């Protein structure tokens, strides 16, 4: 993957247009919601329910793009537009990328 974990330009633009303090607040909601969406994705994957699977992937994509998490968003997008994968490799990769996103975003807001 050549896309960065966080696209700095997108993130700065978000801060500029809505305010840095607000972005911190928005990130709290993201950190609170995203693990739930990842869990929903897992559940849907295990039960083979396509609609919930796509909806969860859709939400992860949409929210991640908002902060410039392009890699994570792109991975989620592939899941949203595809069928349910046979093994969980893509989900493991998604969760690992989310961990990197959290670290990067925390650094950006505390830096």
């Amino acid at each position: 993957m050549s896309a960065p974990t966080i696209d700095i330009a997108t993130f700065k633009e978000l801060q500029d247009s809505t305010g840095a303090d607000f972005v911190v607040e928005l990130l709290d909601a993201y950190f609170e919601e995203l693990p739930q969406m990842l869990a929903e994705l897992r559940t849907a994957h295990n039960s083979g329910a396509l609609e919930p699977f796509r909806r969860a992937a859709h939400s992860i994509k949409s929210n991640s793009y908002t902060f410039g998490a392009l890699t994570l968003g792109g991975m989620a997008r592939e899941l949203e537009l595809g069928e349910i994968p046979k093994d969980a490799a893509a989900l493991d990769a998604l969760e690992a990328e989310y961990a990197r996103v959290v670290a990067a975003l925390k650094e950006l807001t505390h830096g």
Partner: protein
Amino acid sequence: MADANFRLLVADDNKVNRLLMTRSLELLGYRVATAENGRIALEMLRNESFDLLLLDMAMPEMDGFQVLEQLCADLRLRDLPVIVTSALEGLDNVVRCIELGADDYLHKPVNPVLLKARVGSSLEKKRLRDQTKELVKRFATTEVAQDLQQSGFALGGRHVQGTVMFADIRGFTTIAESQPPDETIELLNTYYMLMFDAISGQGGVVNQMIGDGLMAIFGAPLPLADPPLAAVKAAQEMIELIDLLNAERSSQGKAPIAIGIGIATGQMIAGYAGTQARATYTCIGDAVNQAARLEAHTKVVQLPILIDGATHAALGVFPGTTPLGPVQFKGKSVFVDVFSVDTK
């Protein structure tokens, strides 16, 4: 800053999206409320007043497509501007939203500059639409305005069973000649205001005003449960209101006024007549002539409310009517049963 009088509703199940959209719109100066799914959004739209809906598509309970369908079917909400904000991909989704009546489609993440432009333009369109509606309302009744909105304007009529009322002020020319013109106009305005209240309060529609006379229709363009009863009740109320007006006039040393009302029921053709450029909602039929003649006959018998046999028969058990026997009106070969309605 945008006009803070505009109130916007954001419907999105996703918290991050909801917070971000609310923030962006508030920064533009709008007042914002939020709903977590389509069902809640519809409930809020039906109970409160909003100028614009920003609608997400993928939502639990009721998704955006269903909301758009419901809005289309709702007479009061069908004109509400909707901007769809979604991360759904594929042109077919965009097309479907527009076909279902959405004004615009913004792809998520929403660009703030684009958001500002689209929201501004949607609200401007709504303002113009509201203005037109206000204008139509001023020159037509609410019912006619609604009918126009619903079925569009088309010259031509349809058969309806309804009740027609004619009313006018007795000896109005004499009154008008004995006082300054502005006082006459003021009296007319008060009179019309009172008569409109009584008639529309019973579901009737005043469709013509000529000098001191008016014509009202009960049962068209919108159907009424019991047009004859509604017309008679309205007539009684009109007399009561004139009594109140007279009490006020006598305290000002002014002469009382009297009105006569004629009511007839039957099949008629109702519709817009005129030209494409200038038309009026009207009714044509025997009942219309009958009502006009009954109204004229009130002068002869010196009773304020007269109704025809069909109206009387439709009233069923109605206290306070007196049969006056058959009357032959000028230019008519048949006799008409005439009844007088007592005033309260």
